[in-house]
């Protein structure tokens, strides 16, 4: 059985940087798990610790039942696919794929068979005698995968294998990798900074930030029930709209005052999130996904509308994204910003997103292509109140139970 278990795993570098902090995680046998997060979050470090390319500073990593902390990479029965392919340039495709078999003294005939079988799975049969420099990026990536597959290891480790391919090829290769993994049923840990890749490929996705695990659940749950501001901003494209709001009591109901608008908090939301009541009178962050805003009248807008001016429209074919400026304060705490861009770009983003006095926010709404909205038009967007998200502004955590 090839489960992978992280047991209080920590990684500290010589200069004191804490790359991974107390990571507890388990990957089931045959599962496809994705580690995702912004650069520097520790996902690649965690992957390399499984492989044995990084020393483990604290805790244990187990593959199957074995503690692998002190095992060299070759004894862990893992295979890795690197971001920059890392092929052996002076060897042919066949020799590249067969290198690991040679290292293990596999008989030549058996090796040949396995190499050809792998080449068949990956569509490389015609390229077996070529050298890497004669191949395209996608082909080189497939050779890198072939090297991993031919070994029939317990675990596949993939370090952003698609990030060097162009966008369209990436979409195809995503499906390829997923298909091959299902076919071979090998436990796989896949690292990426692209949340779309994470969502489309993973059985479960681990969101990491600054060395700490934020949430580890199936993609849909990450999307629908993010555990904190960071996860909510990071997952989903376009990102969740975050606005500052205050909860107030209105008779028996609780309402959410967002800028100049008032949104009713439905009873079912209150019962699902009883802790909300404790936040009455306080400032919180309210999250609204672009598709929870509507202009078509499909949603009953009695519970609340947000009024604003359309500043830009992006036509995407089947739908359009409307950038609407509303009178509300955007939430630009670090948790949110880090979910959106790399930290070096944080200042630029803050400038783009706020008006000079910080009282206006730019919402992104996902509207039907047929909806007629024009720039500089004032619109009223209905809000799907059942899909509101609420976050504690200080801790960033979701306000839930």
């Amino acid at each position, binding site marked *: 059985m090839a489960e992978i278990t992280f047991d209080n795993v920590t990684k500290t570098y010589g200069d004191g940087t804490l790359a991974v902090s107390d990571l507890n995680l388990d990957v089931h046998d045959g599962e496809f798990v994705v580690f995702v997060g912004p650069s520097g979050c520790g996902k690649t470090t965690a992957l390399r610790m499984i492989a044995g390319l990084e020393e483990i500073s604290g805790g244990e990593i187990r593959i199957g039942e074995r503690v692998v902390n002190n095992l*060299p990479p070759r004894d862990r029965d893992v295979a*890795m696919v*690197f*971001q920059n*392919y890392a092929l052996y*340039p*002076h060897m042919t495709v066949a020799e590249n794929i067969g290198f690991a078999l040679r290292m293990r003294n596999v008989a030549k005939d058996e090796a040949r068979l396995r190499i050809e079988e792998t080449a068949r799975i990956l569509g490389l049969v015609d390229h077996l005698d070529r050298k890497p420099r004669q191949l395209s990026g996608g082909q080189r990536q497939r050779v890198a995968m072939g090297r991993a597959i031919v070994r029939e290891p317990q675990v596949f480790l993939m370090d952003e294998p698609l990030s060097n391919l162009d966008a369209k090829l990436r979409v195809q290769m995503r499906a390829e990798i997923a298909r091959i993994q299902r076919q071979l049923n090998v436990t796989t840990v896949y690292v990426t900074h692209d949340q779309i890749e994470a969502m489309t490929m993973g059985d479960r996705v681990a969101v990491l930030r600054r060395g700490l695990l934020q949430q580890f659940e199936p993609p849909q749950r990450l999307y629908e029930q993010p555990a904190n501001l960071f996860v909510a901003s990071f997952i989903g494209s376009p990102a969740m709209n975050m606005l500052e709001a205050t909860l107030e009591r209105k008779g028996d109901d609780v309402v959410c005052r967002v800028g100049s608008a008032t949104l009713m908090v439905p009873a079912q939301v209150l019962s699902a999130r009883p802790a909300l009541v404790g936040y009455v009178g306080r400032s919180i962050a309210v999250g609204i996904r672009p598709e929870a805003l509507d202009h078509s009248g499909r949603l009953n807008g009695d519970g609340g509308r947000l009024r604003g001016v359309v500043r830009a429209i992006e036509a995407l074919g089947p739908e359009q994204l409307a950038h609407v400026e509303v009178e509300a304060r955007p939430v630009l705490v670090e948790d949110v910003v880090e979910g959106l861009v790399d930290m070096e770009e944080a200042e630029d983003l803050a400038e783009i997103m706020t008006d000079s006095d910080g009282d206006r926010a730019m919402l992104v709404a996902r509207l039907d292509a047929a909806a007629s909205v024009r720039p500089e038009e004032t619109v009223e967007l209905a809000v799907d109140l059942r899909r509101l998200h609420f976050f504690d502004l200080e801790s960033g955590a979701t306000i839930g139970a």
Partner: protein
Amino acid sequence: MTATTVRGAPRKLRTTKSAARRRRVGIAVTYSFLAAVAVIYLFPFLIAIATSFKTEPNATANPLSLAPSPPTTSAFHQLYQDQNFLLWVKNSAIITLSVTFLRVFLDSLAGYALARLRFRGRGAAFATIVAVMAVPGVVLLIPKFLMIRQLGIYDTYYGMIIPLLVDAAGVFIMKNFFESIPASVEESARIDGAGIFRIYWSIVLPMARPALITIFILAFQGSWNELAHFIISAQSTSLNTLTKGVAQLASGQLGVGNRYPLKLAASTLMTIPVAVLFFVFQRRIMNVASGAVKE
């Protein structure tokens, strides 16, 4: 169509023509200059070749002329008949080939260790090697002489070869080159099950071909043309290399008078292997790491 346009055109044409002519003149001047420099650079070498085909009186009378009159191959015949010349060739060949191949191997081992392996004192070792490069070779001659005698390898092939086996510049070049090879290729090999030496031999070394060729050429040239070290490491004439032999010819040990044709014939012949090597390898240096990683 209008008067202004017509007036404008001839002026432009004149400017274009003279601009083109100035450019041509400029190019001609530059090329003449470069040709002159090339000639000055090559002239001594051409004289050497020409003189090796002259008779002795002719060489003494017209040392700078490039046309031997009468042309003769007597200098080469003399060299051939003189047994020593072939002995010098043999010695040079033995030493040069040993030093060249061993130096490529040892420099690359040292370079790889310094580039990739972690061990205590690595920084100090590298600093020492670089420091050695800063010391003028002449300063080290006497210490080397004393060490060679102490080790009892004076006046043997070992004494002539061993001190030349590793050079600081070569180690430096290899270390830098290995550092430029992406670490992921070696990590991949580690995961595939290769040990350190296997990674060095099967993965990294083949990728280092340009650097290896550089070391090969430098080592060949360096040991073939080496003189000072052979003087201090041996004294028997039976161990004379080409450099030592020709040097002794030049100092008049083997004869009186200035035997220019003989000496220059020997020098000309000596140059051939290095020149051949250089031209051969010049064509073969290619970028071997292309295709390994995403650039």
